[in-house]
């Protein structure tokens, strides 16, 4: 019985594939396979002329199936599906063989690669023979976007979407938006103050009619899929009536409880009722119930007494908000590496060993010292050491480069010199000044008086037990000598790390993490904001360490991705779902509890299981457990997979 007419298209991908795999041999091999009526190779099959080859053959030779041997289907499957569709062939009758990522790029030997490519093409042709036409379905998209994380990435994304006229929910865990950037003093390379450039954006977020700002809130649950995410958000009780509160701050003045302020990185204090910093948005306090005397003992209520508009609400409860969203942007930021993990650096052991964000707070005019760089005892340091790569580029901790530390160090050196008379020693392994105007900035600072750059990694910070001075030990690797540098303050430029709850967040949003723990983008270069979960995008330092310009760029980029979804108004959902063949189903009900989406139900009248295709995501788990073979995973059915197995195993 003659099978469907199959055309095979082998792509050279320039030399990416052709440089390893013998194109002629592969093309000829494919031509010999049963049902193959045409087999061609071409330099770039994804190019217009390449696609035209396929289209012409579909029309002229009446092809019924198309096999493209090229890159990963994750790359160009949509391209070739479209080409088939344009030529009148159902796009689900196209199958790809991945002979680049999984063959030419990973195989040393050309002959072996050719052999493997043949097997992969054979497998694809086998599967193609059994393919069936499927129709895409579309579902409407909710026009709202959810943004998780109110740092600069989330803020940027929210504003862009709002300004484009679409509705945004911005959810932030802390009482104020602003993220880590709000803690910074000056920003490199221009040295403008972070607050000066960030605060206006924060205010715009609060004021924009298209933005619903939910601070002190967390996403609890995410269900659904692109265009139709159903999200549960817990808005924690601030214990104040936000409508009545005018942000006067009287409560904070009078509150008797003092606790370390997280925002000040342990260097300053706050009250039990507080806004984390003066420019907070919204500028309304929260009561930290863990530390508030009233919640502990039932007494106090001073804030309630002093509040002019009577806005304190001790009995306020958490609010649960459920909302539908078309797209989600995750911008949850980073966590600084805890340098006490490596006690050799002295952090946590010596008072005047601080990390980068602590220095930012010291240097910040609104910080605990009013912008003065002071030692713990209140005196000014005479010498300061700055250590790069604390935890970064270190297989003991984080293997990757944190990218911003070199520039931050240069900035710190400058700020120390600007505000004190201290000598500055900057201990670097390599100076990586990769951004626009960064090298220029470095060149400026390097020339400043009493700033000394030493090429060598700070190995250890000791204290002279007699003088109390800190001793930094380093090899000056350019001289090949050992140096012990006495200083009063050590600034550790610690690594940018994934947040400690990154795994939990990743699971909640159905995204993955790369080996370094950051969220995984769909494609490192070409799809940096997309994730494997359609409709969920990532931006900023939750994806990898970044400076502010890059973070802002990604925030805007993610906004574009989200807008693409919500403006389209509808999304295509895959027709590759499961189906029950009624005449084969005996109603054993094994499949029903297997479906995580509850897409399978039991039809009592017919005595068979049935699949709700709108709910089914097409994982095929049910098909693999259906003993009688009544459940079929469309596009990945038993016949197709058996044929593929035969193909890869054939000689």
């Amino acid at each position, binding site marked *: 019985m003659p099978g469907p007419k199959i055309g095979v298209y082998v792509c050279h991908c320039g030399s990416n594939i052709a440089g390893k795999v013998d194109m002629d041999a592969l093309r000829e091999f494919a031509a010999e396979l049963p049902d193959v009526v045409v087999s061609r190779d071409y330099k770039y099959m994804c190019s217009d002329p390449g696609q035209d080859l396929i289209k012409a053959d579909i029309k002229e030779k009446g092809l019924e199936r198309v096999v493209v041997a090229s890159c990963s289907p994750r790359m160009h499957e949509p391209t070739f599906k479209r080409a088939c569709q344009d030529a009148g062939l159902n796009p689900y009758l196209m199958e790809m063989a991945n002979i680049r990522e999984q063959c030419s790029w990973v195989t040393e030997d050309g002959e072996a690669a050719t052999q493997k490519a043949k097997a992969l093409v054979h497998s694809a042709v086998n599967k193609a023979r059994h393919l069936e036409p499927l129709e895409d379905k579309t579902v409407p998209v909710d026009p709202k976007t959810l943004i998780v994380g109110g740092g600069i990435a989330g803020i940027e994304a929210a504003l862009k979407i709002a300004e484009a006229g679409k509705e945004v929910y911005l959810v932030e865990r802390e009482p104020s938006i602003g993220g880590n950037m709000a803690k910074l003093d000056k920003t490199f390379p221009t040295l403008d103050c972070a607050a000066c450039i960030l605060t206006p954006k924060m205010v715009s977020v609060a004021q924009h009619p298209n933005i619903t700002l939910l601070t002190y809130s967390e996403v609890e649950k995410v269900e659904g899929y692109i265009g139709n995410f159903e999200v549960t958000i817990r808005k924690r009780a601030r214990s104040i009536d936000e409508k009545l509160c005018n942000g006067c701050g009287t409560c904070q003045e009078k509150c008797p409880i003092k606790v370390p302020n997280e925002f000040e990185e342990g260097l300053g204090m706050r009250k039990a009722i507080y806004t984390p910093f003066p420019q907070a948005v919204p500028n309304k306090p929260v009561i930290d119930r863990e530390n508030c005397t009233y919640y502990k003992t039932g007494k106090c209520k001073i804030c309630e007494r002093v509040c002019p508009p009577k806005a304190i609400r001790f009995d306020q409860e958490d609010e649960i908000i459920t909302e539908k969203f078309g797209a989600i942007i995750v911008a949850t930021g980073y966590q600084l590496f805890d340098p006490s993990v490596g*006690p*050799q650096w002295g952090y946590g*052991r010596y008072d005047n060993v601080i990390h980068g964000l602590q220095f930012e707070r010291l240097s910040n005019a609104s910080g605990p010292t009013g912008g003065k760089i002071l030692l713990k005892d209140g005196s000014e340091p005479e010498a300061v050491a700055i250590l790069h790569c604390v935890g970064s580029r270190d297989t003991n901790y984080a293997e990757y480069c944190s990218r911003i530390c070199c520039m931050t160090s240069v900035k710190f050196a400058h700020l120390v010199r600007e505000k004190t008379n201290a000598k500055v020693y900057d201990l670097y392994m390599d100076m990586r000044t990769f951004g626009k105007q960064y090298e220029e900035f470095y060149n400026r600072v390097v020339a400043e008086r009493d700033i000394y750059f030493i090429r060598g990694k700070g190995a250890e910070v*000791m*204290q002279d*037990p*007699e003088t109390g001075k800190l001793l930094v030990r380093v090899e000056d690797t350019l001289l090949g000598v050992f140096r012990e540098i006495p200083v009063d303050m050590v600034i550790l430029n610690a690594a940018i790390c994934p947040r400690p709850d990154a795994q939990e967040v990743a699971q909640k949003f159905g995204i993955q993490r790369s080996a370094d723990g950051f969220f995984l983008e769909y494609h490192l270069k070409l799809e940096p904001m997309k994730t494997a979960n359609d409709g969920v995008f990532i931006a900023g330092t939750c994806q990898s360490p970044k400076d502010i310009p890059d973070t802002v760029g990604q925030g805007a980029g993610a906004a574009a991705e989200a807008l693409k979804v919500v403006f389209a108004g509808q999304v295509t959902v895959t027709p590759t779902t499961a189906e029950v063949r009624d005449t084969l189903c005996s109603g054993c009900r094994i499949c029903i509890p297997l479906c995580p989406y509850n897409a399978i139900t039991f039809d009592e009248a017919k005595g068979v299981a049935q699949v709700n295709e709108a709910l089914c995501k097409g994982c095929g788990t049910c098909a693999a457990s259906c003993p009688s073979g009544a459940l079929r995973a469309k596009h990945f059915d038993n016949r197709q997979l058996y044929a593929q197995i035969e193909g890869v195993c054939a000689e």
Partner: protein
Amino acid sequence: MSETKTKDAARPKGAGEAKPDFVFFPGCSLHSTAREYHDSTVQSMAVLGITLEELDDWNCCGATALSSADSLLSYALPARNLAMTQERGLPMAVACNSCFVTLNRVNALMETDAPYRSKVEETLKAIGRRLDGPVEIRHTLHIIYHDVGLDRIREKVKRRLEGLKVAPYYGCQIARPRHEFSDPEFPTEMDDILEAIGAEVVRYDRKTKCCGGALMTTKEDVVLELNEQLLREAQVRGADLIAVCCPMCQMNLDAYQGKINSRFGTDYKLPVVYFTQLLGFALGLDEKAMGFGRGFVPAGKHLKKYA
């Protein structure tokens, strides 16, 4: 460590009925220069309910000296001890830091580096022995800390060494390269044990800085310098004595203290004792049995008030 072990340790032992908890590898020093370490370790652990059985016919682990002289031999020699321990079917306890690191080095090899591993196995085969994978090797300090536990130590203390200021000096090879201790550079296990027996532990930042070890033989000048620094910090921090857990450290700091004083014009009189001597003493064991008299710098005056 497993709970079972803790239970075992706590279990009262009738005469002869109990299987020992560990095979004990004393190492050469504990049989010669560091006999007080040997005696105080075995005796105080017995009080704490841990029985050690000396590994029969053990041989020198080769120390780091052999690692430097002959790579294969430096694995083969300690491997014989591990093979015999495996035959005995018990985990191994080690008190000497140098032995500890050397034996662990073989363990590490047993888990990795296949081609070299088979070479070592071949040498064992030549003497009719074999080693199947790594052997559980425990430092006695770690056993006391984990398997006995601080609570049990506190319970058993007869003489609380209240007011005795001790600088805990671990040496380098106990926690490095990376063993079972809390941190390779700033372990705290000995600190906690000393506190549990009532002593005041002084801050000692050099707690794992090197004493120079065997280099005292070949590079005496510079090694004396290292030891001078170690003594200096202990003195500055106000320590009455230094507690150690390694025979080499003890020897360098104690036996050479006089030489250091004459070289650097200092006047250190810091007794250097094994932590187990203090532990045993606190547990009520006899001062003499703990071998306090064997040190070059006498420790007696600091212990008088507790006796």
